[in-house]
């Protein structure tokens, strides 16, 4: 292996370990979820954290944001939130006798959109341009968002009253959907102990600066993907389109997302090449939220994640032929 390339993978792994360790001061356990959030961060993607209330979704988003020396803003979604509350407005400055742009909370490096499904579809839609093109258009003016830019949204899948389900176009723009799950008995005890004297989040320092993060994001793209691995990711994406239980399969954006996320995961795990296990591991978080299962599948109690797992268990992994 080239020495410089080896250095690159070591550098990425070290930075990822620093962030994971820092977040671990607040979030007990859940290393896999933290790793997935980092994957999305390294490939300039966005994350949807979906789980029941009180699990630590917002805490995780805030801990990640604090660990990065970047600008952080929070948007608390409510039914009366307007698009202009998110993107910003042009107001008339009486001193200069001119219209000036006042940026909204979206103009930050890390944006936490809490309870995203409580915002109306109109407000949710204003995030589409931000997420895909990393810019906002207000009136006739297009303003680029700061780099790095990452949107971390949370939503509660249980409580549906007064909420507006995210449209497919919106879900497709999230690179990964992750869940946290309940902590184990020991972990829950550890949480109580840590939060006894105060919130550890308040004393959390940044461990990776914005410039370093941008550099790491660029390096991630250099991770080698063997052509057969690329074909494997494509095969998984395509298999979702012909599965009998799926109404709407994964888009090419999903396949691209899976490909980029695999590169980032490989880098985080200290490799400078992607292996099939990376693709397999990421298939559910990268694809499940983008699929629409058929009604019959819903009635049989089959979730999209389950279908993706089934697909992954049938698609051939590129390994040597036995003959």
């Amino acid at each position: 292996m080239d020495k410089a390339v080896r250095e690159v993978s070591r550098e990425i792994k070290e930075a990822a370990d620093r962030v994971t360790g820092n977040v671990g001061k607040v979030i007990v356990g859940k290393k896999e979820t933290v790793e997935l959030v980092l994957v999305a961060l390294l490939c300039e993607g966005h994350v949807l954290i979906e789980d029941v209330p009180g699990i630590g979704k917002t805490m995780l988003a805030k801990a990640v944001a604090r660990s990065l020396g970047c600008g952080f803003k929070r948007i608390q979604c409510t039914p009366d939130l307007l698009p202009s509350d998110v993107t910003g407005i042009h107001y008339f400055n009486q001193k200069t006798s001119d219209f000036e742009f006042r940026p909204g909370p979206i103009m930050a490096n890390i944006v936490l959109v809490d309870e995203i499904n409580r915002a109306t579809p109109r407000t949710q839609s204003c995030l589409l341009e931000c997420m895909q093109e990393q810019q906002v258009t207000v009136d006739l003016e297009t303003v680029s968002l700061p780099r790095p830019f990452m949107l971390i949204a949370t939503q509660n899948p249980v409580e549906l009253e007064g909420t507006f389900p995210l449209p497919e176009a919106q879900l497709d723009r999230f690179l990964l959907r992750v869940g946290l799950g309940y902590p184990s008995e020991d972990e829950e005890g550890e949480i109580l102990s840590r939060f006894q004297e105060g919130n550890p989040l308040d004393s959390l320092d940044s461990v990776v600066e914005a410039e370093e993060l941008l550099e790491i994001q660029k390096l991630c793209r250099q991770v080698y993907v063997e052509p057969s691995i690329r074909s494997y990711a494509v095969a998984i994406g395509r298999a979702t389109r012909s599965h009998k239980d799926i109404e709407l399969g994964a888009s090419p954006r999903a396949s691209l997302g899976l490909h980029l996320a695999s590169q980032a995961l490989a880098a985080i795990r200290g490799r400078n090449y992607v292996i099939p296990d990376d693709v397999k591991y990421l298939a559910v978080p990268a694809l499940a939220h983008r699929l629409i299962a058929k009604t019959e599948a819903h009635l049989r109690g089959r979730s999209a994640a389950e279908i993706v797992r089934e697909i992954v268990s049938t698609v051939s992994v590129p390994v040597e032929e036995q003959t």
Partner: protein
Amino acid sequence: MKSGLQKGALYIAIIGMEACWLYALMALLNEETAGARLSVPGVLVIYPLAFIFNLMLQRLQWPKACIWAVSWLAWAVGMLLIVKVQLFAGLPLLDSSWLLSVPRSVVAVIYAFKPELLVLLGTGVMWWLGRRLTYLKVDFGALISEFQFGLLILLIAFFAASQLGAELGSSVPIVLAFFALALSGTSVAHALEGKSWLSGLYQGHWSGLLLVSISLVLLVGLLISAVVTPGLLQLAVAALKWLLGLILKLMALIASLFPEPEPVELPPAMPMPEMEPSEGFKLWTLPEPVRNGLRIGLYVLWIGLIVIALWRVSSDVFGWLRRKLAGMAGAEFESLPGAFRADLLGWFKRIYHKLLGLRLPIRSGARGRSVLPEIASVRQIYRQLLRWSSAAGWPRHVSQTPYEYLHALGQLVPEVQADLDLITNQYVRARYGALLLTEDELHQLSQSWRNVRQNKLKKGSRYKWTKQSGK
């Protein structure tokens, strides 16, 4: 039905389908080139023999080149035996003339196509097909490909026979057997994938459907053979001729409506000067062997063009059928786009690979890329590991990654866990990371593979594996 039995049934279906079109083709060639001197079933017997022999050969842990050589040596012996028994039964065994007849027939191919050459080529193709079956992944896709290819060959054989006026004799039983085997094979292939009555809930439904399908094909085949008589065909030809005559009369009538053109007197032709061939002209006359070579090249070109044309036509026909089937309400449509093309390309690729020992860079991604010898040796060792574990009854599932397989294998043979770890790690590095191994690492790898190979199989491990993999 048990999985092993289903696999066996699928093998029988594929062997039967291939035997049907091989029989038709050999019967036609025997009639046209050998004057029906050969007994076709006698030649065809080499096909199942090739399968069984190569199957047994594959179970031996010999090097690949050695297996290849032994296999083709056995073919040569079998082919010579057939030549001796069928064409030179009267000659003593030690007489060399029957042995030399085969190479002589190859040399004389420009002038005549001898029966010995037919035996040589026919048995060669059959041996290759039988050998291919031993490593072919037998599933629904393979069955459909065999069906498409076999049907095309049968159609070509019957068309050629009708054009050449050759008497195939047993065409109806061949077709009936071909379709019956294809239908049975399809049913078993579905059963193998767990979608059929053979292992599922709808036993009556599928068995009924299979029986009805076979009965229907037999009935329709018999009806067609009974109804389509020479008299009926002559009647159809007469009707076509009448229609053609009518069209010609109509054209003549239209032509008569136009005025006749004025005859134009042409000037007398200039007398051609008599020319003697110059000395230089003789120098450009190609020697006979080169001309023979060019003739062969021309034949190959023509055959290639015909094959490509047939492929295009059959692709279009199948595409049209697929579109029609997809449009039918309630019809189940299973698309295999590009399967025939992939088979054809794969076939050419394998021939090229075997002849030159190179991989044909068909895909653009593979163009100009070569595998380094260090990486090739790591991949070779891992391939051997897979073959070894598969032969021991612990095959890798297609969806298992090397590390998942390592985890499963390590639980069965914990005593070589470290060696398996090393082999898998180095393979993953070389295969997916294109990373080169040092000499020490390669040596260590070879040592680990030797350790794994020396490991004896344990009783009950096969049962544990099947339980674990849910087979």
